Structures are given as structure tokens and as C-alpha cells.
């Protein structure tokens, strides 16, 4: 077993969460983001597809999903950057018996809105959305999606039938967009009670009907919190933008070498700036021409420019998966991505130049970045046209479910293993 190291982050540092097929790593740098200390691996040997860092209400809590093909999937957390780890004795994310479903993996851990600091969401496989309103102690499935009438017709993509994207609308507490492979994008406007397919204009290249109501293989959707009605979508073939919260989508693959790809990240301060890494075809699934190029748009997809300085432009047959790209909230922004070949690249200047931060990791499946001490408050709004809904302080309250267990402290403290590593 490899030796486990720990980082020590202070306010103002940047941390990078890297989930791999053999465990989780936590990297730390000062604001210069040139030198990185490496902590981990945690959950050694386990695929870690989802990570998050909760700084709301003064927390410094790392979350990650530890998947084991033997022992199942469990949410782990740490309040001291991995020195002590809480792995619940009883798994907290579980399907109810009547669903006849069993959890395979957790693909996404998403924090709730800034003004709802105890709310979290998980996107899982088989495709479902779970929510917690006690800061991750207890979880329940969102039944409006669990019992969706389309569910019997959803089919797994290459990675499994996963709910991989969760976008709570910061301006409308009742609205959320999620995405499922292979089902497409769905949105609720009533706090999770009902969900409508939102795939108009998104191509399903692999189906007889190219523009069905649902069934698209959406790989990732991003938006900027200051303009939540504008969404960007990387599809299994296709690059799209919506200006109406997903009601319709327009093709924006203008000048990219391939409109196939997995990852996508929004700039933290500019709602018109988005980053992708095009991949050559769903057969080949590597960077085109052996060149590792991040493409950036600064005009909401009207055009894209390759960002290559510091990235290998020869014999770089790389694959970057859907959750392996992230941005921090510094200015200039840090942009990061990890590869299936175990490399993590970073830029500390909005993507103008890049450097390898670490190499030799197991295949990277998740990258997240955070500025320590930034509570997660959204940047000031630049657009005044967002829809606001201030009614209702609580949303996505689950209907009563037999799977919900009492929110006792025992679930976390008494029944937990706190292993010093």
C-alpha cells in the first residue's frame, strides 16, 4: 500500500480534489498555483467518481464517494483534509426496498444553494437523485424523478445509467436541471415533484429518431450562477447552448475539431466563457491528431479557440472524462483537468498557459477545485434578466419515504468509523 500523506490548507490556499480509479487525492497550493502539495491517496484502491468541498457555514468538509465492487458504495467525509475519515457504519445513500433498485455508484456530489447550507444532492447509478437536508447525515431519493414515467425507457450509456449532472438554479429555489446518460436533460420547476425532459434541439446520433423528447446521451451541462437561464451542454456528439433554461438548445460547435467530448467547465466570473476538451469520435475517444487542446469560448459559443501553451501537441492520445475538469474562483481563474492516463494539468491564467501538476496517478475520473475560505457565495450578477423566486425557504423536501432514517447524531457520530490514517 502506498504511504498516505496529508495536506495542510489555510485560508487563501487553493485545493484540488482528484478522484481516480484507485483512490482520492487532495492537492494544495497557494494562490500562485505553481507548486502543489499532494495529500492521499484516500479510499486506497477504490474508484472515486465524485468529490466535493463544503465550506458553507464555516465548514471545511471534504466529501467523496468510495466505490468498491465488493463492498458497495459509501459516502465518506473528512473535516481535516483526510487526517481523520468518517465512513458511516450504515450506508447513507440507499434505494428504498420498493424501488427494487440497488446503488451501483455515486457520480456526483453537489452542494445546495448558498442560502440552504445543510442541503446536498447526490447523482447516482442507476439514475436517481438523492437529497440531504442535514448536511449529509441522512439521504432520501427525490421520488418525482425516481418514479418518472420515462424511467423504463432510459438505457445505460457506456459508463452505466448514471445521473451525473446536478444544477440547482441559484435564482429560483424550485428549479433544478439534471442530466442522465442515457436519458438526457430533465428540469423541475416545482422543487422536484415533477420533471420534464428538456432536450429540444439536442441530437441523438445513435437513435433512429435524431431529435427525440428524451434518450439523448448528455455528457455534461454547465452554467454560470450569475446567468442560470444560460446553459452549455457537451453531448455525445454535439455542443449546445440554451438561453431559456433548457427549453431549447442551439448548436454552438463553431470551429472545434470535434463536437464529441465529455468534460465542460464554466469560467467562475464570466458567464460567456466555457472550456471543453474535444475528443475524436465515440469510437476512438482520444484527443484529435494527438494534440491535447483545451478549447475556450469567450462569446458563449460563437467561436472557440484552442489553448495549447504548455500542453503536449504531439503523440498525446488522451481522454478526459465528464467530471475531470474544474475551475477555481480565483482571478485570474484556475482551470484544471485530469486524464485517463493519470495526469492533471492546470492553468492559473484563465487557460492561457498550462503545466502538468502531477503525473502517474491512476486514471482520473473527477477533478474539483476550491479556494479555501471562499464560502461559495456566488459572484455578483452581471445580468439583470434572471428569474427570481423568493417564495419558500425550503425546497426539494422529499416526500415521506420508508428509506429515510431518523436524522440522529448517532448516524454519523456513534455509528461511524473514524479512522486515523
Amino acid at each position, binding site marked *: 500500500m502506498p504511504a498516505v500523506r496529508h495536506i495542510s490548507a489555510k485560508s487563501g490556499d487553493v485545493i484540488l480534489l482528484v478522484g481516480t480509479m484507485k483512490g482520492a487525492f487532495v492537492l494544495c497550493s497557494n494562490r500562485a498555483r505553481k507548486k502543489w502539495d499532494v495529500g492521499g491517496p484516500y479510499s486506497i484502491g477504490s474508484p472515486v467518481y465524485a468529490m466535493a468541498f463544503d465550506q458553507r457555514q464555516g465548514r471545511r468538509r471534504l466529501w467523496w464517494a468510495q466505490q468498491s*465492487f*465488493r*463492498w*458497495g458504495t*459509501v459516502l465518506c467525509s473528512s473535516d481535516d483534509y483526510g487526517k481523520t475519515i468518517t465512513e458511516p*457504519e*450504515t*450506508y447513507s445513500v*440507499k*434505494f*428504498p*426496498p420498493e424501488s*427494487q*433498485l*440497488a*446503488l451501483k455508484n455515486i457520480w456526483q456530489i453537489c452542494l445546495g444553494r448558498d442560502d440552504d447550507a445543510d442541503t446536498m444532492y447526490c447523482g447516482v447509478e442507476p439514475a436517481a437523485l438523492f437529497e440531504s437536508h442535514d448536511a449529509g447525515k441522512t439521504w432520501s431519493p427525490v421520488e418525482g424523478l425516481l418514479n418518472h414515467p420515462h424511467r423504463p425507457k432510459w438505457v445505460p450509456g457506456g459508463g452505466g445509467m448514471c445521473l451525473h449532472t446536478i444544477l440547482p438554479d441559484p435564482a429560483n429555489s424550485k428549479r433544478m436541471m439534471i442530466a442522465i446518460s442515457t436519458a438526457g436533460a430533465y428540469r423541475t420547476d416545482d422543487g422536484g415533484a415533477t420533471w420534464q425532459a428538456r432536450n429540444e434541439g439536442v441530437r441523438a446520433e445513435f437513435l433512429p429518431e435524431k431529435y427525440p423528447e428524451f434518450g439523448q446521451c448528455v455528457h455534461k451541462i454547465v452554467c454560470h450562477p450569475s446567468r442560470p437561464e444560460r446553459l452549455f451542454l457537451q453531448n455525445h456528439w454535439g455542443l449546445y447552448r440554451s438561453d431559456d433554461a433548457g427549453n431549447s438548445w442551439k448548436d454552438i460547435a463553431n470551429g472545434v475539431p470535434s463536437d464529441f467530448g465529455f468534460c465542460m467547465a464554466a469560467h467562475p466570473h464570466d458567464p460567456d466563457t466555457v472550456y471543453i476538451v474535444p475528443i475524436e469520435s465515440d469510437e476512438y475517444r482520444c484527443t484529435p491528431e494527438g494534440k491535447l487542446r483545451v478549447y475556450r469560448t469567450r462569446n458563449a459559443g460563437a467561436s472557440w479557440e484552442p489553448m495549447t501553451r504548455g500542453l503536449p501537441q504531439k503523440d498525446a492520445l488522451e481522454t478526459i472524462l465528464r467530471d475531470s475538469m474544474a475551475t477555481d474562483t480565483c482571478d485570474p481563474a484556475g482551470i484544471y483537468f485530469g486524464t485517463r492516463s493519470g495526469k492533471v494539468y492546470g492553468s492559473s491564467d484563465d487557460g492561457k498557459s498550462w503545466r502538468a501538476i502531477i503525473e502517474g496517478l491512476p486514471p482520473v475520473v473527477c477533478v474539483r477545485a476550491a479556494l479555501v475560505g471562499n464560502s461559495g457565495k456566488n459572484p455578483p450578477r452581471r445580468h439583470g434578466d434572471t428569474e427570481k423566486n423568493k417564495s419558500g425557504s425550503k425546497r426539494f423536501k422529499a416526500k415521506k419515504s420508508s*428509506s429515510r432514517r431518523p436524522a440522529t447524531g448517532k448516524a454519523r457520530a456513534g*455509528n461511524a*468509523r473514524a*479512522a486515523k490514517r
Partner: protein
Amino acid sequence: MPVTLRIPSYLAVFAGGKSSFLLEGLPATVSAALESLWKDQPGLRDRILDEQGQVRPHINIFVGEDAIRFADGLATKVPADAEILIVPAVSGG
């Protein structure tokens, strides 16, 4: 003779460090034996069974030398002096 149940060392941390248990009573089936185990060691349940009560696919349970997947699954009968062995399957990558 009581029934003995053994678990892999990985799971011992969820069972107070123990990896071998003498089960009270005489559980008639593997299912009954596991139910008896969960009463004292609830942290083992989710790691051995999924939420639908099925043995996780990459875990093997033996009664003596017989794998229950080739017998009657969790309904496999347990003789009075049997040893039940829970082991991770040889799989992975």
C-alpha cells in the same frame, strides 16, 4: 455445536476488530445466520448485502466448502456445527 461465521479482515474494522463469531442459537439457513450477525454487528450488513437484501455480486459465501450461489443462495441450510465463510471474490482490476 454452535455455528461459526468468519469474515475477511477488511470487514473486521466494522465489527469491533473481530473476524470470527459464534452465532447464538442454531440458525437454520444462511439468511438466519446473517440476521443473527447483524444484530451484534450492524456495520457488516450494508457491506455484504445490497439494499435489496441480495449478496453483493463480488462476495462469496460458503457453508463448509460449498458456495451458496451453487446451492440455495441465502436459503441454503446450515448444519448445526457448520462454519460459514464470507470471502471477497477473486475479481477486480
